[in-house]
């Protein structure tokens, strides 16, 4: 089983106050640390686990700048055999353009695969679209929100998709196919710094993204970046902790859930 799995380097924004610059032209990410996209981490782990069980190899592919090599080293440390970096000069916002470029890359370079994994979405743009578009472009069956892989056969897989309300859907999907992996499908292993350093000795192939731009045009345009609309917001309880907690209990009593 040859699995190609996509991995992306994303900024860590959970605790940060993001700043828009140039009157909406850009979001300042210069001071942020970066890490591997959470969903991709689950996807790489799942790919490695499958290969550990049934044999084959995992190829990690990242599209991005030179720094994205970091997530490839990480994937190799987790168990991927190869790492491919498709270098692009600047981030492509349109998921269609991204998928089209990847599709060209896979076709032109004859990247062999039985399955392609992507994360369901990336933490930064949350588009969740590259996997589905890519599947359509490569004319492959597709499934997203994959929360379990129950069976791996040479010509098909049985997977579980996560639906809403705690419901799941079991699906039989023919190979080759593309699956977008949901977080929580497994517990990704820890990757030590030593492991990453060892992985650095495995050569990562670099491809120039502009070689795959034929027919790739953005169909959507980012007009500008804006801050979210301010909702009315909460009534903030402030003061000493003691007072705050008294107020809290007061509210609970008022709402009739605590006597």
């Amino acid at each position, binding site marked *: 089983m040859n699995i190609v799995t996509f991995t992306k380097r994303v900024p*860590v924004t*959970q*605790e*940060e106050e993001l700043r828009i610059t140039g009157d909406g032209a850009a979001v300042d990410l210069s*001071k942020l*640390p*970066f*890490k591997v996209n959470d969903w991709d981490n689950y996807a790489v782990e799942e790919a490695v686990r499958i290969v550990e069980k049934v044999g084959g190899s995992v190829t990690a592919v990242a599209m991005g700048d030179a720094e994205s090599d970091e997530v490839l080293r990480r994937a190799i440390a*987790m168990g991927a055999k190869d790492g491919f970096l498709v270098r692009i000069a600047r981030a492509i916002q349109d998921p269609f353009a991204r998928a089209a470029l990847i599709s060209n890359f896979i076709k032109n370079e004859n990247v062999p695969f039985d399955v392609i994994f992507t994360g369901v979405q990336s933490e930064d743009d949350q588009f969740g679209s590259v996997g589905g578009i890519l599947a359509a472009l490569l004319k492959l069956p597709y499934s997203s929100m994959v929360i379990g892989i129950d069976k791996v056969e040479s010509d098909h897989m049985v997977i579980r998709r996560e639906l809403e309300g705690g419901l799941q859907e079991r699906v039989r999907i023919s190979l080759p196919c593309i699956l977008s992996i949901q977080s929580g499908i497994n*517990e990704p*292993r*820890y*990757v*030590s*710094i*030593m*492991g*990453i*350093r060892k992985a650095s000795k495995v050569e990562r192939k670099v491809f120039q993204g502009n070689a795959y731009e034929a027919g790739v045009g953005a169909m959507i345009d980012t007009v500008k970046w804006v801050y979210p609309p301010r909702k009315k917001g909460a009534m903030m309880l402030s003061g000493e902790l003691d007072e705050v907690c008294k107020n809290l209990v007061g509210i609970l009593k008022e709402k009739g859930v605590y006597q």
Partner: protein
Amino acid sequence: MLEQTVSRVLTCIQCGKCTGSCPESGKTPFNIRMLVRKQQFQSAIDEAIPWYCTSCGACTLRCPRDVKPSEVIIDIRSLLVEDGQIPLAVQKALENTFTQKNPWGRSRAKRAAWTENLDFEIRHVSETAEKRLLFVCCIQAYDPRCMVIPANVARILNQGGVEFGILGEEEACCGNEIRRIGEAGLVEELQEENKGNLQEYGVKEIIALSPHCMNALKKEYGDMGIKVSHYTEVVWDLINSGALAISKPFEKKVIYHDPCFLGKQNGIFDAPRNILGAIPGVTPLEFSRARETSLCCEGGGGRMFFEVETIYQRNAEVRVLEAIAKGADLIATACPFCVMTLEDPATEKGQVVRELSEILMEVL
């Protein structure tokens, strides 16, 4: 296993002094002598076991053959780390430290947030004349309970006329706990980053706020030619020399808890006691296990990020109960981890825990 450790482990005579002094052996499945034995025979070790160790260092101090059992634990953990099979909470702490340079994953940009409420400005160490660095420590930079400690010490040093600066968001985790978790690669990265800054800014002296940071900076960063001390040593000097005058009495019975990394591992027993002794009105009390034999609070060795099952009585609770039995009004200590671990059962039992700087703020 490293060659050195192998030869050290082979010299073990299984005397059991390590187990006798270990804060975990006996009450939990952890048995340090047994682990060394297993290492001698290279037999399999249950993955859950090594995580009980709090890195208090008692075993290594007591070992008559210099086997350094606490280092053996680090070796065992290293293998688990390389394997990727470690408790999730520990994994999270390591990943956070890699990205944000602190185990809690708080924003690095907010590392100096504790300075915001001070009524004087703290300069970057590069802008100071004496290049004296206050090394803040992750937990004291972010945890709301502990953030008061650097603010207090800054005020005290300021009052004592000591010039100092900080690294602000450039400060990275010292790596003390990370080394004990067994993530040597990450420790190297953290050390390189901190050393680079210390060098670039020409730092001549470091005042560490946490005994854990002090330990790492003093003993594990190689010879940097920089004097490293704990803030209690500096403050005691200030009081002793008269540069810092205590103006108010503190009519309390205070029992002092020795942090492992300050006391038994670095021999600083007297400075904190001297400070307390200099405060009029203080009645100093001592735990039955004090100084070299102080009972570990179980906050070290990665245990701040990973807690074992709650079925075992916590040492912090043992400490609090003894403090109450001895009639102490409050437990004083000089380590943020000790504050955090002790305060948990203390609050439950109506006992007060204070970091030394908090007491000082009331009497200066």
